[in-house]
């Protein structure tokens, strides 16, 4: 491996790299934003029904076991080539950690706290927004972080079905036997994941100590 050569390559392609990084980030951001909303809502709803919680967590688990390439393929007929299929796939993969952590975060709250709230006459909506969600927030945040880091990686594969992002370098590099290009894509994805993980950990930590 020729480090000098890689560095020159990277510098030459930096403009394209930033553009792809931007695409990648947007893809992940939109997916995670939607997944947070969906995942938290599902996670909250299933705390009210045991059968529903089993079903929902089971479905999310199954989704996770589908190889990502297959998932893209399965969704193509519905959303076509490009961005939409990419985002949808990423949302589906993000759901499990967010739904599961929302569910456990709420379920793990000391029952006496909820009983006190209920016994004093708080409405369920007040209990949810003033007690349950704030107390579950650090756990939910941990789920969001896991999901984000995970789909930053999966998003690289989304380039294959034309959703853009850093995967573009990887697939083009493979096609052209250009290892520098593959490496650049891979390193950029890793760095993005590490930075996002670090930042979100900080946010999470602030939530716990608050």
């Amino acid at each position, binding site marked *: 491996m020729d480090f000098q050569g890689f560095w020159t390559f990277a510098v030459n392609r930096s403009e394209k790299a930033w553009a792809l990084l931007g695409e990648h980030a947007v893809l992940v951001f939109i997916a995670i934003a939607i997944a947070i909303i969906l995942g938290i809502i599902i996670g909250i709803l299933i705390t009210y029904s045991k059968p529903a919680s089993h079903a929902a967590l089971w479905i999310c688990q199954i989704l996770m076991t589908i190889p990502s390439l297959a998932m893209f393929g399965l969704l193509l007929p519905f959303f076509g080539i490009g961005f939409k299929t990419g985002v949808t796939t990423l949302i589906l993969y993000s759901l499990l950690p967010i739904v599961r952590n929302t569910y456990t975060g709420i379920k793990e709250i000391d029952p006496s*706290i909820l009983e*006190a709230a209920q*016994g004093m*006459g708080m409405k369920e909506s007040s209990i949810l927004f003033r007690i349950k969600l*704030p107390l579950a927030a650090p756990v939910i945040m941990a789920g969001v972080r896991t999901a984000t880091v995970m789909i930053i990686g999966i998003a690289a594969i989304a380039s294959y079905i034309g959703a853009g992002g850093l995967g573009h370098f990887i697939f083009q590099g493979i096609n052209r036997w250009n290892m520098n290009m593959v490496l650049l894509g891979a390193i950029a994805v890793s760095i993005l994941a590490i930075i996002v993980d670090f930042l979100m950990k900080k946010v999470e930590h602030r939530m716990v100590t608050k």
Partner: protein
Amino acid sequence: MIKLENVTKIFPGSKQPAVDRLNLEVPEGEVCVLVGPSGCGKTTTMKMINRLIEPSEGKIYINGTDTATVNPIKLRLDIGYVIQEIGLFPHLTIAENIATVPREKRWPADRIRARVDELLDLVGLDPEIYRNRKPSDLSGGQRQRVGVARAMAADPPILLMDEPFGAVDPITRAHLQNEFIRIQEQMKKTIIFVTHDIDEAIKMGDKIAVMRDGKLIQYDTPDNLLSQPADDFVAALVGRNRSIKRLHLIKVRDVVLNEIPTVKPLDPVDTVKQVFEGSKYRVVMVVNDAHRLMGVIGPEKLKRYGDGVTAGDIMEECQSTIELGATLNDALSVMLNYGERYVAVLGRKKELQGIITLGYLLELVKDDAA
């Protein structure tokens, strides 16, 4: 008024009822203490009153209304609830915790703020120090006080308190009890108070409900519970040395002799003599128009003075006095202290309420010696 009518709770999957055909009536403004061994159904009974648990059978009325017909949220907002496990919200400040119900009731912010400070003062926590702290910064006893303050926040007419002083050391506990009695004297709320501790029950309760295995064994005043325990179980619960317990635990208020002859300061000594002779006590109390105790006159003074002298001239200062809220033990101490065979019982504004004599006190204890 709270009324339980044949209330039964059988939890799903269990054969034994947790609460078994319970009948109980708590008049307005009174404290009813539930005592009994662990698992006898005290908490379950409380939770049925605010509908955290629905009874399997029977009805519960609050001021004549069947609670099953009231929206549970509405019902609970007017029933202060101190949960056995305290259950403070760990992510909220003490002030926010206390403000829970007022907030649900949409009080304006400044009214809530004023109320929070007032309650912190009431439970003996300096608002300046504790207002913005988190529950985790407080000791167990302080948390329990916050729990009590939180239950009283919106001034509910009814309080359900499940072992509110359970997790506190004996000294703090006695202090909180006294504080509570003082507060209750002003507030006159209808209270159901759960405890394991028979001494606490006797001290706090207007009436005590002894429970075992979900059944009500005896529902009586502390006085009767001590002197006439319904069965061996209650007798064992109230324990030995009941005579001494009575001294410690029976309040002057409950046994004071109210009908005592009094005179006014300007009454002539002849009147005083007449009153003295018609009285079974060996002392005559002198009161002013507001019924405040001005002094006492004993038999020696009456013998020495005759015409032309008024009660005010010959009365002596009365030192042997005690407040309504004190215990018989306190009363005995005062008598011994001042070498008198009586103690004058005074109300909040020093108005004369009655008398307790040594003979009467001994009689009360002797009743119970069996």
